[in-house]
């Protein structure tokens, strides 16, 4: 069975990859990608069942934080029922999205700003080294250079140093990192294509 799944996965991967280069394989590639999209849609349902299962267990076992689990399940069921009855494009469903979900995520983003500032302050205590100092000085210069002040940009920092850091140093560094990530992704993809790594089960 494990060999069978590996053969199917490797064949599907090779056909999808081949479809980018050989026009004769393009229809097969499209078909396989469409199947993948449908399966990904079905996986959302499985993911929701998983979420319900995990939080139901927490409530049943009276684990720490089970009140939040109960709240999550109630919100899930109520939203699901309303969406089924009213349809997802109904005004009430839009209010749920724009009045609850988006503000909550925006609040988390705001919280993140504070936690990042706190992390930057503690960085030198955690890791007192040259790169930490460079990191902090760069961050400070960029913040100063981007600040909206009544008298406009801070001379030199806003007009020369910030653009030079972002468009020369940071851009070059970012491209280097992204090339490294792309090479890593390529070799990881090849390992999966060869069946050396099997994230679809089996040993």
């Amino acid at each position, binding site marked *: 069975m494990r060999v069978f799944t590996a053969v199917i996965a490797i064949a599907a991967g090779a056909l999808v990859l081949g479809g*980018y*280069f050989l026009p004769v394989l393009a229809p097969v590639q499209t078909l396989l*990608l469409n199947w*993948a*999209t449908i*399966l*990904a849609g079905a*996986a*959302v*349902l*499985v*993911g*929701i069942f*998983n*979420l319900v*299962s*995990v939080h139901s*267990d927490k409530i049943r076992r009276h*684990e*720490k*934080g089970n009140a*939040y689990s109960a709240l999550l399940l109630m919100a899930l069921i109520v939203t699901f029922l309303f969406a089924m009855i009213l349809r997802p494009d109904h005004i009430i469903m839009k209010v749920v999205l724009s009045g609850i979900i988006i503000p*909550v*995520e925006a609040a*988390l*983003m705001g*919280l*993140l700003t504070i*936690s*990042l500032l*706190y*992390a*930057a302050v503690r*960085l030198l205590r*955690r890791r007192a080294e040259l790169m930490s100092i460079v*990191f902090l000085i760069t961050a400070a210069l960029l913040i100063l250079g981007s600040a909206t002040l009544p008298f406009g940009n801070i001379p030199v920092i806003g007009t020369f140093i910030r653009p030079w850091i972002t468009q020369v140093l940071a851009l070059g560094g970012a491209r*280097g*990192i*992204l*090339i*490294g*990530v792309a*090479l*890593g*992704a*390529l*070799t*990881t*993809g*090849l*390992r999966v*294509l*060869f069946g*050396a*790594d099997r*994230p*679809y*089960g*089996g*040993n």
Partner: protein
Amino acid sequence: MNELIVILVSAFLLFVITLWKRKSPSNLREIPALTRLYRTLGLSIEDGTRLHVSLGNGSLLDARGGSTLAGLALLRHIAERTSVSDKPSVASAGDPTLGLLTQDTMQAGYQAAGVQELYVPTSGRVTGLSPFGYAAGAMSILQNENISANIIIGHFGPEAGLLAEASDRENMVLIGASDELSGQAVLFANTQDALIGEELFAAGAYLGAGASHLASLTLQDILRWFVILALLGGAAAKLIGVI
């Protein structure tokens, strides 16, 4: 067609180097974060605490799949190593497809350790479908489930900061790697030893996941040298007016 040639040559080299590495494993340079991860794995089994692997919200159907697959490879190894622990590892995902693969990968790890009966399907979880929703759900695991180390590996943006903050509040060991630049910057500021760039893909090789992982590191080095030579050659050609 150039891309196809690069892929075919890389595939051939990976195959040859894998065979070579089976016979003569290489010495790896020290990466402090991965040394810490190796140590943390052993400690968590000894002191009966849990590891949490955060795989992020990268989908396998787009360009972010590479880091996600690297995270799954690491999870497979961690699941195998910690399956016999009193408190086996948990993993969280922010994408439903990834959630399914998380469960499957963990089960494969338990099978490899010969303790499939100990596998609990809820140890692989989908905690949210948006980046911040995922982070909020994973934070709850960190706070409530006796976790001693949080391993963040996969596709993460700034939301990694929330997970890092929650880990710090619970005095956990935090090891973080992301393929996204903003995620890397956040993790650099929040972790003791950050993994930068392609170091994300080296975790499997450093934890002894096999010859293919060592071979892919060597292949990355070879390809990197080709890229460096191409960049320098291009710059020189531009300088002398050839291109």
